């Protein structure tokens, strides 16, 4: 029985996950295959909702837009975050690196809602950005920065720049600096040493950041809802509409599961590509 002692310790946590996470997801799966009848009750087993999803151009567009937006956000935030993290790790003197990193991710620790609202303020026609542009004489009249897909991407990149900076920095900081010295000693230029040694060794940090970005970005409802305007809806917004307007929980469940499937696919391809042993 002593061998099982560890299991008893882990049991509360395990039970919580199984009961309050795995089980609800299973119930959701159950809902997704019992679409609503016309009178609002749940019908018999059927994959009609799944079929309906792919048959409706608006839904498919939302899914594709979500995927595309996420890809753009992942690419942009990784490309912006890497040099930033690199500077913190290699340009900032050692004793200030921690402070620099904390400063870089301070605004990370605030609610999505607050942050998106703040961007709305900054980007609105009467907001700070426009006021600055106007006073510098760069534009003749206020530009509409908010309420479009680009504003959504902008808001996302702002958040994920911080997240990726954190993961990439963590990866860079634990690379033994002797490796670069050895590479230089063997004849490598600074660029060559970076590409052959530092970059490959920092990929795990990039990968973790990219994965977290995918998971969090594709499922975000707040940022597109506040900043995106209503011309181009993303999948989480469509799901929310199913809940609030249509009161169609089965359809919402179907869509949520599809969203999760996309993320799972992304994870598997990322893992295969990078041979990550564990997340």
């Amino acid at each position, binding site marked *: 029985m002593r*061998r099982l002692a*560890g*299991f008893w*310790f*882990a049991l*509360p*946590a395990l039970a*919580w*996950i*199984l009961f*309050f*996470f*795995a*089980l*609800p*997801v299973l*119930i*959701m799966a159950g809902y997704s295959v019992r679409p609503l009848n016309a009178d609002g009750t749940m019908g018999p087993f059927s994959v009609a909702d799944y079929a309906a999803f792919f048959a409706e151009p608006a839904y498919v567009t939302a899914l594709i837009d979500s995927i595309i937006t996420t890809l753009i956000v992942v690419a942009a935030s990784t490309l*912006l975050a890497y*040099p*930033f993290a690199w*500077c913190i790790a290699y*340009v900032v003197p050692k004793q200030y690196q*921690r402070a620099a990193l*904390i400063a*870089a991710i*301070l*605004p990370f*620790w*605030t*609610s*999505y*809602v*607050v942050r998106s*609202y*703040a*961007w*709305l*303020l*900054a980007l609105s026609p*009467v*907001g*700070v950005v426009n006021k600055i542009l106007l006073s510098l004489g760069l534009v003749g009249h206020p530009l509409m920065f908010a309420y479009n897909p680009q504003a959504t991407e902008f808001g996302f990149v*702002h958040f994920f*720049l*911080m997240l990726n900076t954190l993961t990439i920095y963590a990866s860079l900081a634990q690379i033994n600096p002797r490796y670069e010295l050895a590479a230089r000693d063997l004849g490598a230029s600074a660029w060559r040493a970076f590409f052959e040694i530092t970059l490959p060794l920092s990929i795990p940090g990039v990968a973790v950041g990219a994965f977290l970005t995918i*998971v969090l970005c*594709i*499922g*975000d409802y*707040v940022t597109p809802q*506040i900043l995106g305007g209503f011309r181009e809806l993303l999948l989480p917004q469509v799901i929310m509409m199913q*809940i609030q307007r249509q009161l169609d*929980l089965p359809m*919402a469940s179907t869509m*949520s599961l599809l*969203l*999760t499937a996309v*993320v799972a696919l992304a994870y598997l391809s990322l893992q295969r590509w990078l041979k990550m042993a564990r*997340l």
Partner: protein
Amino acid sequence: MFAGAYMALCYVFIFLPVGVLVLFSFQAGDLPVPPFHGPSLRWYEAAFQDGRLVDAFTNSLLVGVISSAVSVFIGFLAAYGLARYDFWGKDVVRALIMLPLAVSYLLVGMGLLVSTSALGFGPSLITVIIGHVVINMPLAFAICLAQLGEHQRRIESAARDLGANTARVLFSITAPMIAPALIAAFCLCFTLSWDEFLIAFLNTRFDVTLPVVIWSLLRGGLNPETNAAGSFIFLVSVSLVLIVEFFLLRRRRA
């Protein structure tokens, strides 16, 4: 140096929205946009007198404290179990506990919404507490697991040798030893719960948390009161992060 310029640009980009938010929370005028009049605390006063905000604040506090306490407690136990014992299926258990980190909050929130609806329960803060434990406990677990190394194991063995039973060891020896990590985990869980919107939004109607109230305030257009509330939320989160940093830093020196 290009490096300096790039870094400066990044910092400006990162702090722009928060800076605007906090600055215009002290706006003396009626709109949270330039020109800036003030500074003035009138919108903070308005916020603190706004019944909805005060209720939401209390709710957020309750949800945060309870869900964090539960998360840290069962996360710590689970970490102890996995760090000190070997048993069949250990890797599976670990993977399952960490699973919520790999899915979006939407799935967690929706799962709970659907389940409570199926069972006939209405929206409630309790569901939110449950959901926050689901998303935060894996983090508390990971933090504790990272701290329960060989060093602690040896001290625990010494305690057992002196006659302590498992419960004693756990609560009188192990927990105090990794106290900084436990506090850090609690603060982290609280901050994430404090900021969390989606699960709270899906599972509450009348008793809401602060982020959800801010959301409904947004319907009313741009308003410095929202700035004040938002700045307050930000302030609490940031303070907690700095406390965590201070705790971790202090442990490093010791």
